[in-house]
């Protein structure tokens, strides 16, 4: 079984392909922010170099965020389109799970944090368990101070990964016992996506493409106050 992974939750755009034999090929570009222009040619290039036909792919895995809207829209739309066209199911996995996965062998509390812009972070917390990393708290959106306070309250050694730690290095200096902020662990990887999706695919934990939704943590129920004075034709 081959899985195509699509990852566009941050400024990075990536794709990977793999299955029983692990990750067979991957592509990542963290410069340029041209998700639309890059993603589909990257998938095509990767498949051609790995001599894999799209018809050999059994499932599409996609990073559903939280992350940057401009990227997520591209990845989720591409995943839906490929899923419909190839008549194969999809698997949605969170960007924060993907950040925690490669560092799962640490004994520290794993804290992925993605730069949510406007002074906020998307973050969560994980702990090593046999076979992976288990999420301890919900996916959250908050300021770097919010995260630093939560980490201080926990008072344990932690490893902060993701571009959030690079943008707000103060988290690492303010919280004693915190480490991380490396460029190598800054972005979710499409290879991790394929690795995490594989056991889910074996258990047939799929979602239908029309059920696939990006994970938007910022919510607003407010109606826009279009006043009569604004003379808006409805």
């Amino acid at each position, binding site marked *: 079984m081959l899985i195509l992974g699509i990852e566009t939750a941050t400024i990075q755009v990536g794709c990977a392909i793999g299955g029983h034999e692990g990750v067979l090929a991957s592509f990542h570009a963290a410069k340029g922010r041209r998700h639309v222009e890059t993603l589909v040619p990257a998938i095509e290039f990767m498949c051609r170099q790995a001599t894999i036909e799209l018809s050999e792919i059994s499932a599409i895995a996609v990073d559903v965020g939280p992350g*940057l809207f*401009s990227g997520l829209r591209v990845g989720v739309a591409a995943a839906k389109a490929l899923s419909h066209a190839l008549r194969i199911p999809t698997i949605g996995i969170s960007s924060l799970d993907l950040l925690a996965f490669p560092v799962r062998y640490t004994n520290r509390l794993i804290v992925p944090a993605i730069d949510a812009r*406007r002074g906020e972070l998307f973050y969560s917390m994980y702990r090593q368990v046999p076979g992976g990393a288990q999420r301890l708290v919900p996916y959250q959106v908050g300021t770097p101070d919010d995260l630093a306070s939560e980490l201080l309250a926990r008072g344990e050694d932690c490893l902060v990964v993701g571009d959030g730690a690079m943008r707000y290095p103060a988290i690492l200096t303010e919280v004693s016992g915190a480490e991380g902020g490396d460029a190598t662990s800054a972005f979710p990887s499409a290879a991790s996506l394929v690795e995490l999706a594989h056991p889910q695919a074996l258990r047939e934990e799929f979602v239908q493409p029309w059920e696939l939704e990006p994970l938007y943590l*910022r919510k607003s129920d*407010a109606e826009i*106050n279009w006043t009569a004075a*604004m*003379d808006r*034709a409805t």
Partner: protein
Amino acid sequence: MIRAATTSVEDTRALAAEVAGLAAPGDLIVLAGDLGTGKTAFAQGFAKGLGVEEAVTSPAFILVRSYEGRLPLVHLDVYRLETMQELVDLGIAELLDDGAVTLIEWGDAVAPGLPADFLEVRLEAKEGADDRLLSIRTVGPGWPPRARALKEAVAKWSI
């Protein structure tokens, strides 16, 4: 508050181009005013002032357009939106945090969802068919340091 009068669409564009000369990365400009008062004309002049060569058209139906000038320019129109969630879904947070200058038509309607740091340009129709009154005010800390330069930039039209 600066009040300025323009007498033609071209005049409104010229004023906007002068304002654009003061724009800095991350700036937000809120365009307010009824239909047909020249919000898009202002955006066109502003874009030209930023060195955008591409033609700027109303983003009313596609919601967001991006242009490359001296600074990147993002032009939004929220006229078609019903809820603040749609503004969030447009990725407003990342649009405003990308070093671009952002112009929002009908931005006054969604002010609660915007950072309290912007330049508001309100356009009103006056007696003559193409006469416009522009009221320019600063909200938040970003523009007051440029208030004097702004006043000088639009002095030609001030009333």
